[in-house]
């Protein structure tokens, strides 16, 4: 028999036995039989082990593990009602499990904002205009998170002379933005964005990645392929000509997006390139926004985002 044929025979045998076991599991009376069935299933897998591809074998093992877990939970469910002693034990066990997992989770959750305060971070704002003045310069790692209807402007204003030189940013991490305009200068390192909804992002960086985002426009200058993953309705365009730094980076690959959520040869439905006229409109809006005083700019967020 050819190996592919043997595999399909084994597959059919395995699935048939698995089905029987699952049926046995429906009634607690047949629990022992389900257990025996699983054991024999495991045996045929071990016997066939040398013949199966490693990946398939792994898949079968996982399925057996799932069956064993199901049997175990069925057993725990039926036992406490019959014996008080076990019930007590089970209760203690679940209590100790609860105490071991639950305190660690809140502890880490509360720890995250604490450590984040040491970096250059902008977090948890609504309807705010955030410029360089409200950012700590202690760090070169920029973290932007949880903003709603905000404008973050870290592009040096053309007429602003108070900042002799734009502070260097080496990495950008962004998470959870809605209806926000994020304007960033040239980043030495990479930018990684997560969970954006109805946003405009302007950035120049070495590497660009965006995950789990929808309905946003990205004006980008990057020498490497931008990566998108689990995104939809993204528009890509070039970085507006605002400062001299954009020219130094040379050619940009903002139009050569790689979509990891769409691994087929066909064009990805999750992003498109802005047409030159659309791009021009975006650039003009960004330029005008940079010239607008913060209060007026905030009032115009909805207009700018509604493209």
């Amino acid at each position, binding site marked *: 028999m050819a190996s592919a044929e043997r595999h399909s025979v084994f597959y059919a045998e395995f699935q048939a036995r698995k089905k029987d076991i699952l049926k046995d599991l429906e009634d607690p009376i047949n629990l022992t039989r389900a257990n025996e069935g699983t054991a024999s299933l495991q045996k045929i897998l071990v016997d066939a082990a040398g013949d199966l591809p490693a990946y398939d074998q792994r898949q079968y093992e996982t399925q057996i593990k799932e069956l064993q877990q199901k049997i175990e939970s069925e057993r725990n469910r039926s036992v406490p009602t019959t014996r008080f002693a076990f019930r007590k034990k089970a209760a203690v066990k679940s209590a100790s499990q609860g105490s071991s997992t639950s305190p660690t989770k809140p502890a880490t959750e509360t720890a*995250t904002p604490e450590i984040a305060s040491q970096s*250059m971070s902008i977090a948890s704002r609504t309807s705010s205009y955030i410029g360089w003045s409200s950012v700590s310069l202690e760090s070169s*790692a920029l973290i932007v998170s949880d903003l709603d209807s905000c404008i973050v402007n870290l592009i040096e204003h053309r007429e602003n002379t108070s900042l002799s030189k734009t502070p260097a940013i080496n990495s950008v991490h962004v998470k959870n933005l809605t209806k926000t305009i994020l304007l960033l200068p040239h980043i030495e*390192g990479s930018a*990684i964005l997560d969970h954006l909804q109805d946003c405009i992002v302007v950035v120049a960086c070495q590497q660009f*990645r965006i995950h789990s985002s929808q309905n946003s426009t990205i004006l980008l200058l990057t020498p490497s*392929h931008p990566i998108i993953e*689990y995104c939809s309705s993204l528009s890509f365009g070039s970085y507006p000509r605002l400062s001299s730094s954009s020219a130094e980076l040379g050619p940009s690959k903002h139009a050569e997006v*790689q979509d*990891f959520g769409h691994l087929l040869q066909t064009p990805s439905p999750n992003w498109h390139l802005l047409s030159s006229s659309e791009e021009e409109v975006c650039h003009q809006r960004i330029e005008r926004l940079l010239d607008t005083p913060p209060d007026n700019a905030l009032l115009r967020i909805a207009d700018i985002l509604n493209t």
Partner: protein
Amino acid sequence: MGLLTVIRKNRQKEKEMRILFLGLDNAGKSTIVKKLNDEDISRISPTLGFEIKTMIHGRYTLNIWDVGGQRTLRPYWRNYFERTDAVVWVVDSSDRLRIQDCKEELKNLLVEDRLAGATLLVFANKQDIRGSMSEAEIRGALDLMSIKSHNWRIQSCSAVTGENLKLGLSWVVEDVARRLYYGTLASD
């Protein structure tokens, strides 16, 4: 001649080690590998699949597998586990938002049967970025002290400056050599 002796003799001839570089996307895996190999690091694109580099380190030939870290690619990591001698887990020390993700992925990796016994090096990368988490912070955040299944070490480093990269790799090679080529070390 026992089986173990046969395996050791076989390995001894080649003196090869297989090292797997893993970590979340944007951790700097490719940059570290390229820097270790004295290549240009200024134009690195996100890794779409994987890359293999062969390097000579002392008396050993290292086969380094640099595998992409995008979430979509992570389920495929398992295809590279076979015969792995060491795992280098690369962490972006400036990525505070995803350190919990990083911890989870590492935890999933360590329960893999095929990685049992592999040496683990955690590279706390991007130390050149001001405001990055320190080695101690990452040791805590990833709960490294609870790892009993693997011989591990954490090493702060910077792929951009090259700081501590060779130091970390040397530890990996020594630790694997002690395990695989034990008994042959003295005679060399």
